[in-house]
């Protein structure tokens, strides 16, 4: 699988909320950027020191202007480098590369109504969805949960654009979304889309299933950041090579640093592209992805190398 890289320049960086910066990217080779559908993301390749970090960021907009993309980046507390780099080192004028947009979180336009729910920085893909639905004249509600008013990126623009269709909740003022009340009110044919903190996604998904919503109507954007962990060795079955995975690197990153090109797409444990067979391992696999089923995770013969790790010292992969 070949990976196209699009050269871009950082045209503008703006603080859009507490700890959130928006980054506007424009192509440097004069060609138009690929058009994208609501909910798409790109991988942003950042050169931090000797490493290249490739992080997925949802595209906040715009849907029709192919001269620029906008992403929004939250400065994460336990950043593995990407968000800290964007906040502390990336500057206007910098030249970087990105992947073409990929969509793992798209609208089902057959729906009679769309219920959009965003928590914090999860607003970015939800915002492009609202823009597309508004343009199509499709019925939707946008529910946006933030800690405070100041931590809500794009809040004023969303209020202005969507008026009473926007419902904002500030947890610091004890205003919380009442999912249990909201779900049964929705007309038959409603689809639900959610992006936000993992715990919020899991909670809303559980409540929706308990309220009898079919799984086909529930859509979530899950990006897992590859958390660090203990170092271990990866043995490759085909070449016999052994590659060391450092504590702050993913298996995928370590393989790439060693000159290998395993397939990947989202680098966030969502798409399934980097699924790899495990021949053997001397510990247990720490599955951090949202792709494998619980049964597959338990079976322990597959691993998503972009986010998952080993609790042990050596894993042998069919690569």
């Amino acid at each position, binding site marked *: 699988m070949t990976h196209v890289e699009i050269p871009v320049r950082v045209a503008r960086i703006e603080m859009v909320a507490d700890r959130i910066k928006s980054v506007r990217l424009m192509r440097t080779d004069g060609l138009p950027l690929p058009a994208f559908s609501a909910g798409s993301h790109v991988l942003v390749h950042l050169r931090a020191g000797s490493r290249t970090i490739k992080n997925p960021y949802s595209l906040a907009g715009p849907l029709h202007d192919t001269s620029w993309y906008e992403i929004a980046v939250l400065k994460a507390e336990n950043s593995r480098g990407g968000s800290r780099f964007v906040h502390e080192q990336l500057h206007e004028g910098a030249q970087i590369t990105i992947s073409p947009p990929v969509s793992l979180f798209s609208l089902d336009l057959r729906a009679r109504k769309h219920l959009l729910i965003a928590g914090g920085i999860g607003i970015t893909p939800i915002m492009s969805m609202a823009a597309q639905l508004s343009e199509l004249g499709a019925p939707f509600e946008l529910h946006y949960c933030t800690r405070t008013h100041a931590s809500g990126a794009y809040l004023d623009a969303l209020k202005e654009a969507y008026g009473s269709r926007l419902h904002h909740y500030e947890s610091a003022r004890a205003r919380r979304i009442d999912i249990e009340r909201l779900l049964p009110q929705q*007309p038959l*044919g*409603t689809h639900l889309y959610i992006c936000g903190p993992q715990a919020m996604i899991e909670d809303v998904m559980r409540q929706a299933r308990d309220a009898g919503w079919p799984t086909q109507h529930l859509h979530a954007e899950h990006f897992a950041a590859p958390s660090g962990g203990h170092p271990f060795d990866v043995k490759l079955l085909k070449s016999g090579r052994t590659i060391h995975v450092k504590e702050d690197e993913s298996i995928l990153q370590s393989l790439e640093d060693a000159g290998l090109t395993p397939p990947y797409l989202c680098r966030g444990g969502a798409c399934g592209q980097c699924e790899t067979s495990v021949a053997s391992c001397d510990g247990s696999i720490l599955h951090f992805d949202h792709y494998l089923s619980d049964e597959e995770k338990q079976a322990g013969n597959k691993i998503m190398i972009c986010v998952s790790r080993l609790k042990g010292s050596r894993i042998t992969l069919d690569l």
Partner: protein
Amino acid sequence: MLVAGIKSRPLYPGFAPDRHCREHVFAIDGEGAQAVLDLFAAHGAQLSGRMTIVFADAAAGKSEYAARLDQLPVDVVHRMPTLGTAMQRLRAVLKASRMGTRIYAAGSETLIGLTVQIAQELGMDPQSVMTEHRGTLARRVQCVHCKGFTDNARTNIIQCAHCHANLLVRDHYSRRLAAFQGVCVDAEAPGELPEIVEIFK
């Protein structure tokens, strides 16, 4: 012949109780009634909330099923004289329903197909409809040439009720149209037909 081995041929996995839903709407015709009776007999205790049955009852209440359905612990049984009127009633019921409603369809392939079509038009994912085939395999066929529909096709070759072309009835199915596709079988040599066999009994 291009009749079998086509992916769009729908599968009907059968009913299973959905204990999370707060409303259950059953669309049935003919022997499909037995699928609902069986579901209640085996899992009735797990179903709660409002229950509605829309029954396309061609036997006008004289079948053994009508009386037995009336004895089920359901809120309402809409008994309609034809499939067409039953589907109109189903659409009205579903239009007023909210999320948390499970749709079930049992009986002829035509009833199942039309139910899934209505659910889809109201924004429901077709896979979310529970389906169980009972009774006839007779097909609703769309002529790919004149676009007219012919009901109750029982043979591999039928004559289009609209343009009178001789059509081969394929497994190629359209969920949007709720119909199998019929393609002219004797275009090269008009009147030269393969053997006509009753295969959709």
